[in-house]
C-alpha cells in the first residue's frame, strides 16, 4: 500500500559533482569493539517553497533520529552551529563545521508540489576531507509518505559511512497487547521500524501469535485461534485479506515461516500430541513432513539461500538447535552450551543464527555462527525471546517481558555487538516482532 502511495523515483543522480571516494577517511567500521559515536551535523533541510517549511524540519529530525538510534552516530546540536545552510547549492564553509568537530554534514532541501508530491534532495559531506561523500540524491514521494523519504535519506547516509546496507526504510509486524496478564488481548499490528505509523491488522477477538513477513514484505504468515484452534493464516498486507492454510480437523499448526522463494512455508504441526516440522506449497496446499520423531520439533527458519532449515528440538532431552536440509534428512545439532536454546532465526546475511537461550532462570538473546561456534549472548533479563533480524543483519529486535502480576511485554532492539539496547515505542504492550525486508 505504502509502495503505491510513495512512488519513489529513487536514486536519481541529479547532481553531477565529482564523486568522493567511497573509501575516504569518513568511515565507521562496525566491529565488536566499543566505538566512539561519529559526530555529525544535520541542519534543518532548506524549504524550497513555503509549503515545505514543516516537512523540511521534520524530515531532518527523522534522519537524525535514525542515525543516532544506531548508537554509531552523535548529533551536534544546532545551538553549536557557526554557519547555517540557507541554500542547498551554496558552497559549504567546511572550516565552520570542522570548528565544532562535525565529521559528517548532511544538507538537504525539500519542495512540495501543487499536487502534494514531495521532492527531497540531500548531500553528505566529509567535513575534514572537505568534500562530498557520494553524490547528491533526490527522492520523490508524497506528503503522507514523508517519513519513508526521511528513512531513505538516512539509509543512504548510513550506508555510505558504514559500508553496510541500511535498514531504516523497513517495517515491523508484531502482536499488540492490551489487558492484564490473565485477560490479555492480542491483535496483529504493523508499524515503521521506529514505531511510527501503526496500523492494526486484526481485531482482538482471537489470540494471534508470531507474524512473519514474506521475503518481499507483501504477505504475512501468522497463527490465530479464530477458528477456536491454532491455525496458520496468510495475509495480504495491502488488502488485509487473509486465508487459512489447509489443516486436518483436530491438528494444530503454528510457528510458520516463509522460505526465500515466497511460495513455501515451513511450520509446526501437532497431531496426537506430537509436534513435528512440515513444509507446504502455499499455492497448492501440498504438505511434506520433514521431521518424524516423538520429540518436539518447532520454530523452523530457512537459510537465506533456501538450502537449509534451522529449528529447535528437545530430542536430546532439552531444547537445542539443529540444522537439516530444506527437504529434511538427518539434522545436525549445533548448540552445545549450558541451558536451553530455542527460536533460532537465520540472519539475512547467512552468517549467524540468532536464538533465545534459557539458562539458570534467565533468558537471553544470543547469536552463534551456523556451525554453533562463537556463541555470544547479547541480552539478559527475566524473559527475552523471539529474535528477528534487521534487513542488513546488524540489529536484532525481540520481545522482553517483565515479571510478576503486572508483567507486560514490549519490543527491544540490540546491535549484534550487544551494544545499544533500546526499547521500541509502542502504544501498549507488544510482542513477537518480525522485521520486514527493506522496502522498495
Amino acid at each position, binding site marked *: 500500500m505504502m509502495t503505491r502511495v510513495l512512488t519513489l523515483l529513487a536514486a536519481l543522480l541529479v547532481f553531477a559533482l565529482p564523486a568522493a571516494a567511497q573509501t575516504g577517511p569518513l568511515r565507521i567500521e562496525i566491529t565488536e569493539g566499543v566505538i566512539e559515536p561519529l559526530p555529525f551535523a544535520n541542519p534543518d533541510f532548506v524549504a524550497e517553497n513555503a509549503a515545505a517549511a514543516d516537512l523540511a524540519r521534520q524530515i531532518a529530525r527523522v534522519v537524525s533520529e535514525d542515525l543516532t538510534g544506531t548508537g554509531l552516530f552523535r548529533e551536534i546540536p544546532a545551538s553549536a552551529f557557526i554557519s547555517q545552510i540557507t541554500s542547498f547549492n551554496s558552497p559549504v564553509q567546511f572550516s565552520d563545521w570542522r570548528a565544532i568537530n562535525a565529521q559528517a554534514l548532511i544538507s538537504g532541501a525539500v519542495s512540495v508540489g501543487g499536487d502534494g508530491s514531495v521532492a527531497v534532495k540531500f548531500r553528505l559531506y566529509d567535513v575534514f576531507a572537505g568534500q562530498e561523500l557520494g553524490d547528491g540524491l533526490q527522492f520523490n514521494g508524497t506528503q503522507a509518505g514523508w517519513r519513508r523519504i526521511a528513512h531513505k535519506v538516512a539509509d543512504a547516509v548510513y550506508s555510505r559511512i558504514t559500508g553496510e546496507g541500511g535498514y531504516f526504510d523497513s517495517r515491523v509486524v508484531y502482536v499488540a497487547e492490551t489487558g492484564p496478564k490473565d485477560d490479555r488481548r492480542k491483535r496483529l499490528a504493523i508499524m515503521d521500524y521506529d514505531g511510527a505509523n501503526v496500523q492494526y491488522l486484526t481485531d482482538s477477538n482471537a489470540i494471534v501469535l508470531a507474524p512473519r513477513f514474506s521475503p518481499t514484505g507483501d504477505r504475512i504468515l501468522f497463527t490465530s485461534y479464530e477458528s477456536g484452534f491454532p491455525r496458520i493464516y496468510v495475509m495480504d498486507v495491502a488488502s488485509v485479506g487473509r486465508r487459512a492454510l489447509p489443516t486436518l480437523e483436530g491438528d494444530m499448526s503454528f510457528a510458520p515461516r516463509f522460505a526465500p522463494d515466497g511460495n513455501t512455508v515451513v511450520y509446526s504441526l*501437532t497431531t496426537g500430541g506430537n509436534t513435528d516440522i512440515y513444509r507446504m506449497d502455499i499455492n497448492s496446499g501440498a504438505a511434506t513432513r520433514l521431521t518424524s520423531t516423538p520429540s*518436539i520439533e518447532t520454530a523452523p527458519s530457512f537459510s537465506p539461500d533456501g538450502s537449509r532449515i534451522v529449528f529447535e528440538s528437545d530430542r536430546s532431552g532439552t531444547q537445542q538447535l539443529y540444522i537439516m536440509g530444506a527437504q529434511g534428512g538427518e539434522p545436525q545439532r549445533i548448540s552445545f552450551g549450558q541451558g536451553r536454546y*530455542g527460536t533460532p532465526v537465520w540472519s539475512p546475511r547467512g552468517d549467524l543464527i540468532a536464538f533465545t537461550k534459557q539458562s539458570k532462570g534467565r533468558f537471553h538473546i544470543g547469536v552463534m555462527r551456523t556451525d554453533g561456534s562463537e556463541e555470544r549472548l547479547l541480552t539478559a533479563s527475566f524473559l527475552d525471546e*523471539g529474535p528477528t533480524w534487521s534487513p542488513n543483519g546488524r540489529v536484532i529486535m525481540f520481545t522482553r517481558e517483565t515479571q510478576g*502480576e503486572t508483567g507486560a511485554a514490549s519490543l527491544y532492539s540490540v546491535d549484534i555487538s550487544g551494544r545499544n539496547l533500546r526499547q521500541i515505542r509502542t502504544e501498549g504492550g507488544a510482542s513477537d516482532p518480525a522485521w520486514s525486508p527493506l522496502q522498495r
Partner: protein
Amino acid sequence: MTHNKNGAPTMALFTRGILLVSALALAACTNPDRFDSAGAGGAGGAGGAGGIGAPGSASDPRSPLYFQQTIGDRVLFQVDQSSITPQYQTVLDGQATWLMTNTDYVAIIEGHADEQGTREYNLALGARRANAVQEYLISRGVAPNRLRVISYGKERPIELCSDEACYSQNRRAVTVISAGLSG
C-alpha cells in the same frame, strides 16, 4: 479477584472455556485434591452432601459444575513434564466415569504451560499435556470422538505471579465440558 470478564462473543466454546477456568481459579489457592474428599457441596451452599441437588448445581452429580468442582477438572504437571502423576490419575478416573455416565457431553482438553519457556515450545508442550490426558481418558473407556485437545501454551495463565507457587498452577490440562452437538 483477578479473573476474566468476557471471552470473545463470537466464539462460544472458547468463551465457555475461559469462564470455567475462571471459576476454577477462585479455588486455585486450595489444594485441588480437597475437592474430592471434602466435596464442593459447601461451596454451593446446599449442604446436602451426597444427595441429589438442584439440577445443574454443583451438587447435582450430572452437572458440569459437579464435574468441575467435585471431581476436579484439571491435572497439574511438573516442570517441562507431561506425565500424569498417581494423584491425578485418580482425578482422571473420576472424569472418565463421569463422561461415560453423562454421554450428552463432550470435552475439550486444554493444555497449558507456565511462562518459563519460549512461545512455540510451550504450545507444543501444552499439546503434549492435553494429549496425555486425552489418552488416559480413552484408556479408561471414553470414546475418542467425544474428546478434542487444544494447547494454549503460555497464553492463558490463571495465576499471575512469577514464582513456582503460580507456575505450578499454570502447568495444567483442564477438561472443559460442554453439551455435545451430536452426543
